[in-house]
């Protein structure tokens, strides 16, 4: 609770938290209510400008209500961002711990795996997985989660190694603490601020990659509206109707920014050394 309040006290944090909060509300509300059916086509209402006939953001060439589509698109964006961050956290922590604290025959291969997977572009990994296992939300989440998870693992490994070499870990061992206790009490709390920033970055990048994938046609099915899908849909008419590209583009950009700012604010709020 105090963490949320201290995030809200910072302008950047407040913006991030409020925007993400609005998206979460939009994602939930859109499951049972949208101003119009996002998939309803009505040639009679094509190319409407914003604020005509109740279409807040206007309609596209076949009469899709853009605001409704944005609301439903928030659902996929949020699900992918959160799930990908969870996968990345698990992958990053496990690989990072193994690479930093494991015995030689574990840490060597773990470091190698991190280096190899980092060299592999996440977008490409997602496209390959989608090609092999069919494009679905699950594939997208796994691809983004592991792709960015190894980047998290590399940062986590360095952080864990520096905590392990610290005097206070030596002091804890002098006090009789075992490895599990040291990981729980000393390693995890001390890498948490870095991890929070990394994971917020993963969420921001996940939003971008998810939009890129659906834009390229590798995301979820075209029947469920998404921001990337909207961009794909409207790109042919970008010169005539630039607004229709701006809405989903703006949504992606603001969400990426919001996740980054929220991550920074969370790090500052959870680190007692930075407390005011």
């Amino acid at each position: 609770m105090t963490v949320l309040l201290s995030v809200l006290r910072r302008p950047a944090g407040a913006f991030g938290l409020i925007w993400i909060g609005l998206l979460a509300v939009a994602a939930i509300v859109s499951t049972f209510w949208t101003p119009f059916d996002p998939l309803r086509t009505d040639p009679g209402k094509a190319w409407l400008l914003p604020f005509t006939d109740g279409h807040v953001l206007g309609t596209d060439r076949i009469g899709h209500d853009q605001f409704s589509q944005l609301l439903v698109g928030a659902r996929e964006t949020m699900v992918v961002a959160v799930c990908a961050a969870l996968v990345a956290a698990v992958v990053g922590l496990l690989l990072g711990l193994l690479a930093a604290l494991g015995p030689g025959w574990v840490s060597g291969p773990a470091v190698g795996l991190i280096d190899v997977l980092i060299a592999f572009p996440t977008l490409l990994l997602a496209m390959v997985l989608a090609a092999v296992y069919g494009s679905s939300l699950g594939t997208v989440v796994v691809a983004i989660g592991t792709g960015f998870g190894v980047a998290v693992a590399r940062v986590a490994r360095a952080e864990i190694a520096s905590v392990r070499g610290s005097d206070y870990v030596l002091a804890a061992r002098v006090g009789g603490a075992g490895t599990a206790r040291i990981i729980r009490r000393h390693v995890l709390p001390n890498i948490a601020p870095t991890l929070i920033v990394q994971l917020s970055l993963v969420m921001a990048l996940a939003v971008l990659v998810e939009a890129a994938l659906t834009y390229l046609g590798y995301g979820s099915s075209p029947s469920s509206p998404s921001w990337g899908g909207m961009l794909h849909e409207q790109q042919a008419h970008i010169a005539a109707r630039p607004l229709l590209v701006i809405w989903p583009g703006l949504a992606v950009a603001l969400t990426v920014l919001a996740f980054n700012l929220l991550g920074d604010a969370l790090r500052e709020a959870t680190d007692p050394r930075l407390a005011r």
Partner: protein
Amino acid sequence: MTLLAVRDLTVGIGGAVLVDGVSFTLDPGERLGLIGESGSGKSLTALAVLGLLPAGATVTGSITLDGRELVGLGDRRLSALRGRKLAMVFQEPRTALNPLMRVGRQVAEPLHHHGLLTRRAARTRAVDLLADVGLPDPAHTARAYPHQLSGGQLQRVGIAAALACGPALLLADEPTTALDVTVQAEILALLDRLVDEHGTALVFITHDMAVLARVARRVLVLGKGKVLEEGELDSVLRAPGHEYTRTLLTAARAASFRREA
């Protein structure tokens, strides 16, 4: 009955022999000073006693605590001894405490995980321990994070944490080197009093004869990993038997002279 017996301790890291055949014994409640310049092997000797040498270090010889061999003992067994029988005070109080954990909790932690007290009782005991080491308003201090305390206060916390479980042996590795001169004197007096009250045996590691003279009567002079001289502090001070000891003495005199000037 001997508490700690170190016989022919040799520690090598990466082919270099850093502690070379060190032997000494310590009775319960007895105090011993380990003196030597940096690189003389004094800190490694302490870490060897705790079984916390860096990975890749090779140890030969024997270290017995209460007649029990510690060299080659498994980490789980050693963990059970560390904190409860053996404890250590570090040189840098600021880095020896977890920056993200309230200091009271860091004092309480070993009491709880050795199963001596419940979490709640350990927390209460930690406040008592902080009072024992002379920290003002211990209940409030227990809730502070390390960055909110001064170096001297942090070293008091470090001493409280080390003595929490009433260890039989306390290793103090240059506990005053990182502190102001006035605070040094306070910390030395505190160590002196607490070790006396608890009947704890003390191995005091330093490079400073003047500091050592305040806490220990018996001294072991180390140089390049070897024991150069051993004996009562008075006789070593009066008639240093080794060139190296004389150098240390001169350095100490020069330092105290500078301090007075």
